């Protein structure tokens, strides 16, 4: 029975009774992999699309996060019947001449690619736009909530 806060680049695995959470997502993405048979899930707070071969923080990068989370689920005795949901990847500032330009969109695209390669269904997503999100996943209820300021809270 714990609440795990995944900071930027971090991850967590939760069992029934646990809450997984990633707060204040802008261009970053909160990804959750859900065990469809057991009450178990893993979350990553992904920052960048590509690791370029770096292995220091696998859940920092979209191209290494998915396989790393799968490995953690396997270690925890998951059924490995997995589906996924994600939210984030916004463009917070309306800029046209900065490396910030499309990092959120690229994060979302890279994660979708990784999920496809790993053969995992993306059940729902709430990505893009220009507003911040906080995501929480209740492992027991299998409930993925996206909270915003001024736009309320939705389950996706």
């Amino acid at each position, binding site marked *: 029975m714990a609440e795990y806060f995944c900071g930027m680049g971090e991850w967590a695995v939760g069992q029934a009774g646990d809450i997984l959470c990633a707060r204040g*997502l*802008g261009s970053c993405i909160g990804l959750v992999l859900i065990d469809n048979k057991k009450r178990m899930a893993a979350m990553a707070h992904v*920052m960048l699309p590509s690791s370029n071969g770096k292995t220091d923080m696998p859940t920092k990068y979209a191209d290494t996060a998915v396989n790393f989370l799968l490995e953690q689920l396997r270690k925890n005795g998951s059924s490995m019947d997995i589906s996924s949901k994600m939210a984030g990847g916004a463009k917070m500032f309306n800029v046209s001449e900065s490396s910030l330009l499309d990092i959120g969109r690229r994060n979302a695209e890279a994660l979708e690619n990784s999920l496809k390669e790993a053969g995992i269904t993306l059940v729902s997503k709430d990505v893009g736009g220009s507003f911040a*999100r906080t995501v929480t996943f209740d492992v027991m209820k299998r409930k993925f909530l996206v909270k915003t300021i001024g736009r309320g809270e939705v389950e996706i």
Partner: protein
Amino acid sequence: MGYEKLEADHLDALKELGNIGAGNAVTALSTFLNTEINMEVVEAKLATFNEAASIFGSPEKEVAGVYLAISGNLKGHVLYLWPIQSAKAIAGMLMGMNPDELEFDEMTMSAISEIGNIMSGSYITALSSFTGMTFELSPPAVAVDMTGALLDGIISLTAVGDRVLVIQTSMVAYGIRIAGVLVVLFEPDSLLKLLESIGMGV
């Protein structure tokens, strides 16, 4: 490069650069608003992502932010952040209105944007004359939302391993309850160039 090569001396030098920039920015703003503004502290530190995203306590804390991209010889990002009440107070001063009656409409956002633009512009001008390097600044972009979200893209782009180098200045204008934080993050290669330009090559 890894940040393990950065020693206390380098951080001190960057802090000093921060002081020069922030001093200039504070002077510009004091003149502009015709009020006394004090710079509290300039820090140059290697922060964890969470430390950087939690400048105001929680990554979910709602703040107003003005962002400018630095290009030219160096690549970097300037972000000026205010807690909501401070943003309203400073916009109210500029517009001659009661801060408590302000909404974040186009006019308020544009006032906030202008102040961020003046601050960042003077900061970068001082840095440029001190280092002899040319910097170009993008037009300002303004947003009001969660702290973590306004910072995470910039942190991601400037991170080395699990750390970012943040040059952070807190400012207080007395009498009108304004507290803001100016954050400057350089992309790693640019940081090396900046240190070289002041004879502190790593």
